[in-house]
């Protein structure tokens, strides 16, 4: 699958040329622009940074943030870490286990641990979630 015109990738690579340890910033930029980091760009990145394709692949697969295919559904990241657990997120998540229109994915802490349960969608954060508020959020993004 061809995910983007090569020129876009080249622009990103040029932008980071000469930067120390540029791989993560490059991957972040590619994912921000195309929604994912496709397998097809790996050789281009490897060549630009003079590292092996295996190394690039190894980095992409190590980090939870990077994915090699575009997300199938709109994503709601719901914090499932301890402080949100203490505020009832597990019951909340269980109530939405059958939701098929959006993908409710776990994230471990959003730094809002005194006002959970919390969610993160796009560039917006949502605190003090109740079943009603999460349902409204699902409607909004679905």
């Amino acid at each position: 699958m061809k995910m983007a015109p090569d020129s876009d990738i080249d622009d990103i690579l040029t932008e980071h040329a000469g930067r120390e340890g540029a791989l993560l910033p490059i991957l972040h930029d590619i994912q921000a622009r195309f929604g994912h980091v496709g397998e097809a760009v790996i050789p281009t990145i490897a060549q630009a940074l003079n590292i092996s394709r295996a190394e690039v692949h190894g980095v992409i697969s190590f980090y939870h943030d990077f994915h090699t295919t575009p997300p199938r559904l709109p994503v709601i990241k719901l914090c499932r870490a301890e402080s949100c657990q203490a505020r009832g997120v597990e019951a909340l998540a269980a109530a939405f286990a059958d939701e098929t229109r959006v993908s409710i994915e776990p994230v471990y802490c959003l730094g809002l641990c005194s006002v959970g349960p919390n969610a993160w969608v796009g560039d917006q954060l949502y605190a003090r979630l109740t079943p009603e508020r999460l349902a409204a959020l699902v409607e909004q993004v679905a």
Partner: protein
Amino acid sequence: MTRTVRISNDALALACGADHVAAAFAAAGCVVERVSSWGMHWLEPLAEIAGEGFGPLTADDVAAVLAGTSALGIGAIAAHPFIARQQRFTFARAGQTRPLSLDDYAAHGGWAGLDAARRIGPDGVIGEVTRSGLRGRGGAGFPAGIKWTTVAKAPAARKYVVCNADEGDSATFADRMVMEGDPFGLIEGMAIAAHAVGAQMGYIYVRSEYPHAIATLRGALDLAAPIIAPFRIEVRVGAGSYVCGEETALLNSLEGRRGEVRAKPPLPAIEGLFGQPTVVNNVLTLAAVPWIMAHGSAAYAAVGYGRSRGTMPIQLAGNVRYGGLFEAGFGMTLGELVMEIGGGTASGRPVHAVQVGGPLGAYHTPADFHLPFDYESFAAADGLIGHAGITVFDDSADMSAQARFAMQFCAVESCGKCTPCRIGSTRGVEVIDRIRARSGRGADPVESLPQMHNARKGGRSLAEDITLLEDLCETMKFGSLCALGGFTPYPVLSALRNFPQDFGLPAAAAAE
């Protein structure tokens, strides 16, 4: 007369709807100033008008606030007991300045520390930081002065200052509040560190879950560049890996590699980023330094408890009535923090368990409420204070489920480099599942083979599974390369020892 209303724009206030409230005040003809948060999270969004606070507000409350008929007033914010009982050094400006205003920063004592550092020179700075007793706030509590001395003495043409802003622990948000609310304070601290050790380049490694902090820091760095020159700082963004908070994994990540932990030695102070001498410090460690330089090490060291000097920004979170940021000298008891300051649980039910120090910290019972909040006291009680996050649980919590979560989290986040952490955590989940199901375990098909002379053929009892879990924790504790595998036994074993009934054991087994 137009009234000025101050409302925080930090991520937590925004998540609680601060923008809607701000818009309503603006629509009513007020001048709205977006400032940092005071840290009283249960009151967010909190509006301040001429020193008086109102919260938690929605847009619908604004008319009543302006008419003087709102029931949500809390009186003078600075006099509120939650604020008045604190000793704010690092958070001295919290609630009072616009995060990206250089004028506000300078008017509230900003840059005085850097000026002092430049006056007394690198050796002078290291002397002051050492005498202040400042210890690393990222968890391990290593003396900052010693680390800086090592880097300063290491001969190299190129050195780095790396700020660890990966803040992955649940219950912690103090780093985030510094970065979003007082970014120049962190930048000033890094500039002082660079001056002390002779570094040219600094990186702030921020977790990707903190987009607001990233944006604020980038804005602040553009503004502050001339002030800290020739030292330069760049923000780098993590990619959703908890273990990248471990300093050597963080360095690998900064270099563009998988975030795998490195064996130590060599210490990062000698061979750190790109093999060069590197100071790696937590946000709170670095942000404490400007105050120390401006007010003197003696004033800082005068506060604290035992070998834990100065103040700690403590974070009250989870099922707690008054959650937020509480900066105080070390030494308050856990009970004071949870019951008096935090007001007990938000649900109103009894406090069942308190986890101190994030996912790698122990679960305490109220029997530990006498413990003074300091590194050594918690270590002596088989716990740790870590990054000073406190999660409160009420009596609806099932502590065997929490123990399972600790193992599962370790399995998900393990970097994979060492076996006890990578494999042990998965086996840990399985054993705890068996304990929770009281199922015991029979021999599996391989173990049943006649060739497997040493494998046991009979089932394993609950008691044997508990022993197995304890053995596994022992192996992880002593065999892991870093504290991810090494400290996961803290929440697991503390849950087992302090809440045996949740594992199907009689309460008496707790004593051991």
